[in-house]
């Protein structure tokens, strides 16, 4: 149920930047992450993975491993119960229990290099590794399918033999395309026929990785009474509970997931990889605690990439600068099992523009690469790259200002998104105006040194943001401080941005909040930290819980002062009635005669979230001899609704922008002929370093979200979207060449420069 609020503007806490509650533990090394978990009698697990991208498993011989001293258990897919063919929500991904069980441990066939085939548990990590390597697997190697063209070709090798594809409502067997769907309105073909200019391009991009620095890990104890305890680095403990229970065929209530700190996720830590394996190894080892930590090459080869693929994009425009129609085919790689980000890509692709006619066709395409997972605004960066590339060409063709063209065609309140949803109040126009008025846009590009050329690019993008379910509990303690429990994994300071919203209501300093993130037995259901939902949704739960606590305390004050509740007012952290007044923190110590501790709890389930837009400007320099690029100035403009904690909101924008710049300029899965990834290390998978980046300037525009009492919009994801095109168009402006394939790496730039 969506509420609309009159947004408050005079804040005591919101809009300040206090130090986060978990900060001290994180700068002293005390914070406990998944890999740091210790338990009495802990043993280690390890896995053996497929060296082939596509193969049938002929046999698995575990006898040598089982005979090794120090080995407690060996596991293959045969040890798993049959999983239901059922989808469960897992944040930004849907997880199909049967498919994902086969993904975490191969069932007869391997679908990508690095696919887990068997696991062991042994006395220590080294012994576990030696035992896993002693497992002998025989394969019948099959031809790998490495990209969407190969997957959709006639007579392509079929990756998932029992897949029945849904192609525009028709059941199709013997296919690598799991789903084809379409959103369409207006007479698209007629509109193109009547357009003054029509530009159609096809862009391509490689799979890329989220690149979280902490590898996946899990520790599990499956005790004799059937209760399973798990510690695992995750964006959402309840997602780990649901997936682990589902893959093991046990009730969710049998699984308790303990909260541990998470070392980055970006969408890639919503799926489980190791928790069910650790659980089964624990059971087979007599209830010993078993820990697994993924090695870095396997993080690349077998966990969470974002889909690569291909997008055909056709835009019509009239000479007056109005877009007439848009048509796109989005073909995204799901990896070895169905389920790419093509659904959200289709929602986002045209969301910056007010279109009279639009057709969006999405293809979810299996390839012999790791099963893709969410990555920060999943699908939107790929879609944004495609449309903004064509919009840039249209602006060049028309000779118009690139911001004015976007303003003339901007989506606003009432605009229908490509999938039919009508926008409430959104802030794209305000972002474009802020970009136009920015010092960056008004400043000249400046001269490049000899041998180099400079260019400027601009791009916009959209993410719908997430709502969903969250829980927050509050207890006012005798000393006037507040105990707060909330269920959201904290990846960037959300303990504090959530507590600030309760603090604003109660008038109690946020430093007086003791914030805990409990295990799944000790807090109400809370969805993943993903979808840019946490500060908005869990924050709203905290806001509601604080209001409930005020209601409770008004009753206590009425008891104390022997008056009617209706006479008690609360404002400025003070209760008043009939001329008496008492501060909330002073009241805290006087509650015993009124019934003891005062607590409140709130759970919310929000259907909508209120949309996010970003506009980025990039200046970069290209070395014309080597093709090396250097970003020299970068400004990210974003509608944040209301920045609860401006420093942390800005950090989200800066971090997202740099991930997007890496995506544009360097990052890729370099797949060789046998279907394997050649660059599976941080040396060769080239993420931006401190040396590669300038400071990232931000402009936070605040167009309040009508769905939140403080106007908060999710901020975390949209900033990764505009850089793909903003950066690429800057390279285009510098070199005079167009680029339709990511990354725009030095070799590709040199090819373009030397091609004619």
């Amino acid at each position, binding site marked *: 149920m969506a509420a609309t609020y009159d947004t408050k503007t005079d804040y005591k806490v919101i809009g300040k930047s206090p130090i986060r509650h978990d900060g001290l533990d994180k700068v002293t*090394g005390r914070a406990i992450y998944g890999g740091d978990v210790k338990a009495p009698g802990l043993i280690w697990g390890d896995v053996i993975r497929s060296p082939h991208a596509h193969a049938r498993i002929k046999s698995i011989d575990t006898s040598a491993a089982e005979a090794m001293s120090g080995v407690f258990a060996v596991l293959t897919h045969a040890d798993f119960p049959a999983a239901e063919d059922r989808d469960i929500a897992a944040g930004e991904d849907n997880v199909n229990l049967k498919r994902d069980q086969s993904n975490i441990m191969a069932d007869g066939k391997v679908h990508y290099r690095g696919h887990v085939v068997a696991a062991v548990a042994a006395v220590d990590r080294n012994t576990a590794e030696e035992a896993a390597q002693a497992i002998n697997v025989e394969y019948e190697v099959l031809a790998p399918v490495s990209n969407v063209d190969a997957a959709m070709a006639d007579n392509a090798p079929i990756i998932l033999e029992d897949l029945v594809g849904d192609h525009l409502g028709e059941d199709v067997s013997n296919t690598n395309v799991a789903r084809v769907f379409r959103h369409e309105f207006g007479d698209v073909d007629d509109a193109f026929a009547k357009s003054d200019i029509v530009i159609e391009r096809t862009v391509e991009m490689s799979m890329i990785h989220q690149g979280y*620095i902490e590898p996946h890990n899990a520790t599990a104890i499956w005790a004799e009474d059937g209760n399973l305890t798990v510690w695992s680095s995750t964006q959402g403990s309840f997602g780990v509970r649901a997936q682990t229970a589902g893959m093991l065929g046990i009730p969710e209530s049998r699984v308790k997931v303990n909260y541990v700190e998470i070392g980055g996720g970006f969408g890639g830590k919503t799926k489980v990889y190791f928790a069910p394996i650790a659980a089964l190894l624990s059971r087979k080892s007599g209830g010993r605690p078993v820990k697994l930590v993924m090695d870095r090459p396997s993080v690349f080869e077998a966990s969470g990439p974002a889909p690569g693929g291909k997008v055909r994009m056709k835009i019509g425009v009239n000479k007056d600068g109005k877009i007439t129609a848009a048509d796109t085919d989005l073909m995204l790689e799901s990896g070895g099992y169905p389920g790419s980000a093509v659904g959200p890509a289709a929602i986002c692709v045209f969301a910056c523009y007010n279109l009279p006619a639009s057709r969006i066709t999405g293809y979810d395409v299996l390839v012999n690469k790791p099963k893709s997972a969410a990555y920060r605004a999943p699908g939107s960066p790929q879609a944004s790259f495609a449309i903004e590339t064509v919009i840039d060409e249209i602006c060049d063709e028309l000779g118009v200002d690139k911001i004015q063209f976007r303003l003339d065609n901007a989506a606003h309140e009432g605009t229908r998104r490509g999938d039919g949803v009508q926008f409430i109040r959104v802030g794209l126009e305000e972002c474009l105006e802020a970009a136009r008025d920015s010092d960056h846009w008004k400043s000249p590009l400046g001269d490049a040194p000899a041998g180099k050329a400079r260019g400027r690019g601009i791009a916009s993008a959209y993410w719908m943001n997430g709502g969903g379910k969250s829980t927050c509990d509050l207890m006012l303690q005798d000393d006037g401080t507040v105990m707060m429990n909330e269920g959201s994994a904290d990846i960037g300071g959300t303990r504090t941005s959530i507590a600030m919203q309760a603090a604003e209501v109660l008038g109690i300093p946020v430093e007086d909040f003791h914030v805990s993130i409990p295990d799944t037995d000790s807090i109400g259901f809370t969805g993943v930290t993903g979808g840019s939902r946490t500060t908005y949704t869990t924050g709203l739960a905290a806001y509601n819980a604080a209001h409930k606590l005020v209601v409770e305390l008004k009753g206590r004050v009425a008891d104390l002062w022997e008056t009617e509740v209706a006479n008690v007012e609360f404002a400025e952290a003070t209760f008043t009635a009939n001329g008496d007044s008492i501060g909330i923190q002073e009241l805290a110590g006087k509650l015993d005669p009124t019934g003891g501790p005062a607590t409140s709890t709130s759970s919310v389930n929000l259907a909508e979230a209120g949309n996010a837009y970003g506009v980025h400007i990039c200046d970069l320099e290209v070395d014309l001899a080597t093709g090396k690029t250097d970003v020299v100035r970068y400004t990210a403009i974003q509608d944040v609704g209301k920045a609860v904690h401006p420093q942390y909101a800005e950090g989200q924008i800066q971090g997202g922008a740099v991930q997007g710049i890496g995506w544009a300029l360097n990052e890729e899965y370099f797949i060789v002929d046998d279907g394997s990834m050649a660059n599976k290390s941080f040396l060769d998978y080239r993420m931006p*370093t401190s040396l590669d980046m300038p400071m990232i300037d931000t402009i936070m525009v605040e167009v309040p979200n009508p769905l939140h009492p403080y106007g908060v919009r999710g901020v975390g994801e949209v900033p990764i979207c505009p850089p793909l095109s903003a950066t690429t168009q800057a390279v285009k402006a510098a070199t005079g060449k167009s680029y339709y394939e990511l990354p725009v790496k030095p070799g590709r730039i040199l090819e373009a420069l030397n091609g004619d």
Partner: protein
Amino acid sequence: MTTKSPGKIHVTTTINGQEHELLVPPYMSLLDTLRELIGLTGTKEGCLDGNCGACTVSVDGRIVDSCLVLGAEVNGKNVDTVEGMATAEGLHPLQQAFLEEAALQCGICTPGFLVAAKGLLDNEPSPTEGRIRHWLAGNLCRCTGYDKIVRAVQKASS
């Protein structure tokens, strides 16, 4: 520890000012020696091949990736980790600056950045932005885009 171990190595080393006497398997990295034998889990594992810097520690004042050093190699040496930065008087200025400047999001790279940055400031109290960026290029952060990390080091240096 393991069946194939040819015998452990006797190591005497000083970690954060405290002397430790250890029996270290010959294959064990300094990272695992710290984490598994001593229990100092502030030093993080990110890649085990020296490319992310999450496991950065100081050995006799020189910063190293502890995943690329053997535990046996620190015999007779001084090892300093993130756990040794704060004193009874309070946080190290870098730790305080990282908090104030919001130089961490998930925090997994933070111990490595802190130890690396301390290695810089101990020798060069007032580095330029370019020098800071060059020095820290061996430490990957995926959350922040480095802006606030560089500003925190600048703040601690002034």
